[in-house]
């Protein structure tokens, strides 16, 4: 296992390789020790100009670290409702904690997001490739579900006090069982034994963790 410092070093190199210098974090606080540590682990080689270049393994690790970082940002922003300008500093600490496997689970929870809150791309993981084949068993907004799909409300993606209050007054809380009934002309879903209808602006704020596959007995 490599130190957080090395992880960050590799992440920066990877970023510079793929996205150029626009990321402010690619400052070269490079000291020889980090580079040497990375080189010993086989993640970089030192080029003729003395600068570090990623090896295959280094590139893979750098990409994974970046993925964790941006997933962490999404998690902080979408679920924990941390303000966008604060997500990055928090995520920097987070990225070293999310060990392999955990990032995939967070990725699934969030519905395999493609970009971070700032709009930068999130590298794909194994789980995203699988999700492409089977769109179920993931998290997405109510408006992206399918009729007769059931699930559990994962969270409400809004900070608007009034919106939250309305949704909660109807009993739409994280943890509530929910069944989508129809998408058009308005969104209709069942909660317990009551049906509700909402428009798109509310439906896209109810984030649901969908169940695997609904045995469609009714139709």
């Amino acid at each position, binding site marked *: 296992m490599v130190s957080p410092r090395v992880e960050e070093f590799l992440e920066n190199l990877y970023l510079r390789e793929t996205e150029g210098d626009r990321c402010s974090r690619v400052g070269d606080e490079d000291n020889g020790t980090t580079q040497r540590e990375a080189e010993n682990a086989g993640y970089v080689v030192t080029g003729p100009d003395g600068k570090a270049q990623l090896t295959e393994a280094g590139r893979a690790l750098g990409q994974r670290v970046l993925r964790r970082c941006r997933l962490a940002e999404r998690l902080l922003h979408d679920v*924990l*409702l*941390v303000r966008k300008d604060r997500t990055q500093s928090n995520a920097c600490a987070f990225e070293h904690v999310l060990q392999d496997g955990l990032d995939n689970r967070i990725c699934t929870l969030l519905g395999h997001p493609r970009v971070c809150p700032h709009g930068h791309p999130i590298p794909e993981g194994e789980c995203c490739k699988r999700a492409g084949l089977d769109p179920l068993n993931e998290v997405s907004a109510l408006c992206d579900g399918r009729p007769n799909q059931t699930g559990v409300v994962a969270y409400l993606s809004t900070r608007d*006090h*009034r*919106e*939250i*209050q*309305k*949704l*909660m*007054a*109807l*009993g739409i*809380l*994280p*943890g509530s069982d929910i069944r989508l*009934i*129809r998408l*058009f*002309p*308005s969104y*209709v879903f069942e*909660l*317990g*034994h*009551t*049906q*509700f*209808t*909402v*428009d798109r*602006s*509310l439906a896209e704020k109810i984030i649901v963790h969908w169940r695997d596959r609904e045995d469609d*007995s*009714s139709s």
Partner: protein
Amino acid sequence: MRHGPLVSGASLGVARESRAMPAIRRVLIVGNPNVGKSALFNRLTGRYATVSNYPGTTVEVARGRARLPGGVTAEVIDTPGLYSLLPITEEERVAADMLREQPAHVVLHVVDTKNLPRMLGLTLQLIEAQLPVVLVLNLYDEARELGIRVDVARLSERLGIPVVITVSTTGEGFPALLRTLASPVPISSLTVEYGTIIETAIRRIAERLGNGHHPLSARTRAALLLQGDEPERIRLARQRGEGDAADILHIVAETRARLNHSPHYYATLALRARVEEILGECFFTAPRAAQRWRRLADRLCMSPLTGFPIMAAILYFGLYGFVGRIGAGVVVDWLEDRVFEAHFIPWADYAVRRFTPALLHDLFVGEYGMLTLGLRYAVAIILPVVGAFFLMFAILEDSGYLPRLAMLADRAFKPLGLNGRAVIPMALGFGCDTMATLVTRTLETRRERILCTLLLALAIPCSAQLGVILALLSSHPGGLLLWVGVVASVFFAVGRLGAVLLPGDDPMFYMELPPLRWPLPGNVLVKTYTRMVWYFREILPMFLLASVLIWAGQITHVFALTLRAMTPALRLLGLPPESGVAFLFGFFRRDYGAAGLYDLQEKGLLTGNQLTVAAITLTLFLPCVAQLLVMHKERGWRMTAAISGVVLTTAFTVGWTVHQVLQWTGIFL
């Protein structure tokens, strides 16, 4: 009995009895919309208030008396629907206020049994407020049908309050309910644990509030303040002065800053967790599907493929067929010809001429007399039409169809700055725009209420007007088509423009869809009757007043002058000066105007083109006096003046344009 372990709570209850309680036993009914509160109220009191599936119809508060065992009489008050102690809508605010301002011996929390998990949170809130709560598991038959079972004794024990099972439509469980209402209700000591941060804040605020004389516990008031309840904050500032209030609000702000979500969010989650923990022991569900017909009917109503045809069929057969043909046709003809023309008018004419001075003859039995026109219109024309409409509307309301209509219509109303909820006042407007203007109250924001009021005043013809105009244009199919097209276009164009010009956010749409139920004939009839009585009481004086004004206007020649002043405007529309009468009287009653046109057509004074232009302008023209008065009451005179200005301008401009286009293209309708 079943509330054994509550001795401490019960003693607390006795202490509270000494507060400013009314001498007579008072019972306050609270609960979500659609749980059968009104039906329960009716069965308790034997007096009728509107029973409805439509969330928000019970805006007005109903009161009645109930006879309890032991010869005790109780005052029963039905409050508007309440989802949580933290109100969002106007109705909820009313209900929450009543809990504070109407100290009750019993607070009857009525819930829909099958939805207990969603509704028990409010029970816990009421218990925490130290109110004398009795939980009523209503609609128990529907729950049974779904295979749900509740361990009532265990639930009562866990909550520390009496719990009763009822079916208000059949009366099941009512003897037990009456017994419970007659005996003292223990105050439960149950509390909900909201987590350290919120609990600390609640304790600090509650200490400052003190345990003074207040219907709600300090803990509850603290929790409400913490959750940003505006009414409670205003009350705090009023009762404690700005200084004390600022100190408490500082704690609120401090706590909010420490939490990622609002305190309300965490409080609701904690409440729900507690509900689940309690119900885990006493609420048992069996997976069993809803009745087949219900699911099928539901799908047919909501799927666009079948839903829109069903909507069209209901509008056609219900509005046109039943209200138009039977109400406005058969019944009106019979009342007019058989009752008024044949018997009442000759008799009244004879009596008035015989017993009053000549000056007053016209007032009573002249062309626009109080008896010949005012009373005859109110009784023979408006009442049957409106009655038929109310009957139709009550059936739709009680069947649970209206919210589904709202769901279908939401997308169509969005461009107009309204949402699906507006379909209710709009549909009602085809019956009576005056009543519909009152019902705009159920819309959520001021912006929606203004937009809806404007559209009602401008482009929704009421049933009386609709009846006459349909009869008028029936001989000119092209004119009828043009009339529908123009009025509908104006409706959407002005609505869209209003939505763009009026500042504010477009409304969100969310609504409960109560299960489709067979309407109970008794409920439908009594509801129709209550509304007809209400309508008649409101409207008859307006008619008589209109007759008097017309009479006075004619005697003083004010009308003649006004008519002369209108002639140039009418000429621009290509209408003969005689049609001015229709417009002038149209202001007193929309249908007076249309009826005036009818007379002109009978005399052969109008061509098809003129008739169409007149019908369009008249439909868009100023609403009747009654509607104007209600607009003033609901929106204030400034807004009423603004809306009237828009309506007048639009009506004239559109009428003129149609006239010009018809003339230019040389079309004859």
